[in-house]
């Protein structure tokens, strides 16, 4: 660490978080098209004006005061969520962003840490969703267990790809996941058991008799949107996933994964079991996607092959790239940008894939490490170099 972080005050980071929260609130609240467009413009211009050096300072402030920043972020998110307690659409968006972030964290472990490409992320979301659809149709299976099974099953089905993935590299490995993504979608479309192109209905989540699909009646007579249930659940899931991924990154597991990604040959010379780490990362990532997929399916109430195409997988990969490969913190804003902006800005709804692909092209050309690049690990935040 250098002089910049010594002077990093916690207030700078907290102020930045506050701004992010206020911006998110305003953006979700905006209803008129011109408001959305104006906010998008303000956000872009603000980021541009702030420049890279100020970004660095904010980031080092976050890095230097991790635990207080975490609590600030949690409290601010809770406030924002609470402010939208009656707004179905905003809550749906928030939950979607958080669930997709969980899936992208999984991809991040695979691709950002272990260097295993996965162009079938949406297929693993789909495995989770279809597991939820099949199991919730049978009474008597506790839904908490269903979510768990969805994750396990996604990991298990992913393990079918492990042998070919371990034997191949680079483009050859990419082809295997792409082939799997197409195979999965085609299979669902022609299979009668899984409902064909129309897909299946999924019943809402119910844990310990608490139905997630009923509006919450408050003791003082008000009613909160039922999506609040899912938002809280996805918030918890995201918290667990972020914690898991952070712990993983900072442990010797993360170091091993990095070694495998950066140079397989050198890693195996130094005694790392390359195959083992790739399997760990791939299975863990798919399991995270499966869990997210199950909750997402229960929230939206149906699953269909059209939601789990190669194009959707590409959107997941793009979120990871945009956020900054290997940086779990960048995923949330990237997911929000990719998922919410087209929903809010109706004018670009029709053009969203076009604009979005052009945007990713520009990022790859001019900022190939993503919007928030991954930083070197800091094992001891308070450590000062002499």
């Amino acid at each position, binding site marked *: 660490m250098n002089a910049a972080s010594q002077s990093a005050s916690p207030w700078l980071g907290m102020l930045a978080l506050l701004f992010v929260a206020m911006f998110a609130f305003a953006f979700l609240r905006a209803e008129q098209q011109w408001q959305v467009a104006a906010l998008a413009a303000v956000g872009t211009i603000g980021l541009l004006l702030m420049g890279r050096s100020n970004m660095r300072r904010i980031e080092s402030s976050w890095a230097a005061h991790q635990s207080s920043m975490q609590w600030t972020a949690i409290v601010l998110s809770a406030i924002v969520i609470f402010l939208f307690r009656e707004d179905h659409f905003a809550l749906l968006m928030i939950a979607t962003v958080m669930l997709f972030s969980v899936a992208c964290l999984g991809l991040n472990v695979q*691709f950002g840490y272990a260097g295993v490409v996965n162009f079938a992320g949406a297929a693993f979301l789909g495995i989770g969703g279809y597991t939820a659809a099949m199991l919730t149709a049978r009474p008597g299976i506790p839904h908490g267990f269903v979510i768990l099974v969805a994750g396990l099953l996604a990991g298990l089905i992913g393990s079918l790809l492990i042998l070919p993935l371990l034997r*191949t590299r680079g483009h050859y490995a990419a082809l295997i996941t792409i082939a*799997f993504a197409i195979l999965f979608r*085609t299979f669902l479309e022609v299979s009668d058991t899984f409902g064909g192109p129309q897909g299946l209905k999924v019943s809402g989540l119910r844990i310990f008799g608490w139905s997630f699909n009923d509006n919450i009646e408050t003791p003082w007579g008000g009613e909160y949107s039922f999506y609040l249930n899912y938002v809280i659940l996805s918030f918890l899931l995201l918290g667990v996933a972020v914690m898991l991924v952070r712990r993983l990154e900072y442990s010797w597991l993360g170091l091993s994964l990095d070694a495998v990604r950066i140079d397989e*040959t050198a890693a195996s010379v130094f005694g790392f079991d390359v195959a083992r780490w790739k399997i760990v990362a791939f299975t863990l990532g798919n399991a995270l996607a499966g869990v997210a997929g199950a909750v997402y399916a229960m929230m939206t109430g149906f699953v269909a092959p059209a939601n789990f195409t190669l194009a959707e997988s590409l959107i997941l990969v793009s979120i990871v*790239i945009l956020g900054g490969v290997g940086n779990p913190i960048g995923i949330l804003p990237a997911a929000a940008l990719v998922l919410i902006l087209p929903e809010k800005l109706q004018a670009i709804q029709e053009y969203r894939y076009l604009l979005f*692909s052009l945007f990713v*092209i520009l990022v790859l050309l001019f900022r*190939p490490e993503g919007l928030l690049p991954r930083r070197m690990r800091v094992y001891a935040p308070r450590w000062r170099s002499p």
Partner: protein
Amino acid sequence: MDPSLLAQYVFNGAMLGIIYAMVAVGFTLFFGVLDVIKFSHGDVLMVGAFTGLTTYLALDAIGMKSGPLMAAGAMLCAMLAMAALGAAIARWLVLPLRNAPPINVLLITLMTGTALREAVRLFYPAGANPKPFPNLLPSAALPLGDFALRTDNLILLFVGFSAVVIVHLLVTRSKLGLAIRAVAQDAETAQIMGMNFRRVVLITFALGSALAALAGVTAGLYYSEINFGMGLLLGVIGFSAAVVGGLGNLYGAILGGFLFAALQTLGAVWFTVPAYKDVFAFAVVILLMAWRPTGLIAERSAERV
């Protein structure tokens, strides 16, 4: 099996095979010179097919009557336009990322493909709907037992084969091909020997993309329909074919193309639900990759450490 039915399957398989092989040859050429996968290839094919359709409409509007001439015009225009598009993609999107991780190149070309696909869907008149492609070639059928061999398909098969053979001769016999192979083997040494690296790369991309355009128009004439999404699956199939055959190897690409067509045809025969043919073909591709990780005809050079 009934011989005429068998002949029908073999002929359809050959038709698919030649289309796939044309796409796969492009992939393998690009990988050869630059070690990159240009994933927008399938969508370049689709834009080529739409260029062909537009050319036909224009020729029709100025009063041209002869079908085969219009078909030739459509093919030629599509090939020229796509050669330019392919070179432009290489110049502005692929070459700048030469030193970036390969995954970035894969991603940027995937996104270019998406942009092309969306642009056609949004901006081509009624581009979201499938477009009927006119039957330009003489469609008289030669009856062989119960199986009718259509002349237009025979012509398409012949054109496709000649195109692949011409590209093969170009790469193995001509001075340009020598330059392409030199750059493929060792770009730095080739540059030291005075080859214009950028020019060779751009010409290679133009060549591959022109072949894709031909494949697109062929697919349009064969299926009598084109749509904005046709490139995605054809691109992935072409990529699979090139990879299964062994990237960077022309014979491998051709072999892979026909192998994939054979798998699809077999899948269509074996399964009662014909749609399972793609599931079957892609599953076999995954298994083949597990068995021969660098393709059936493996890369010659040892892996660089």
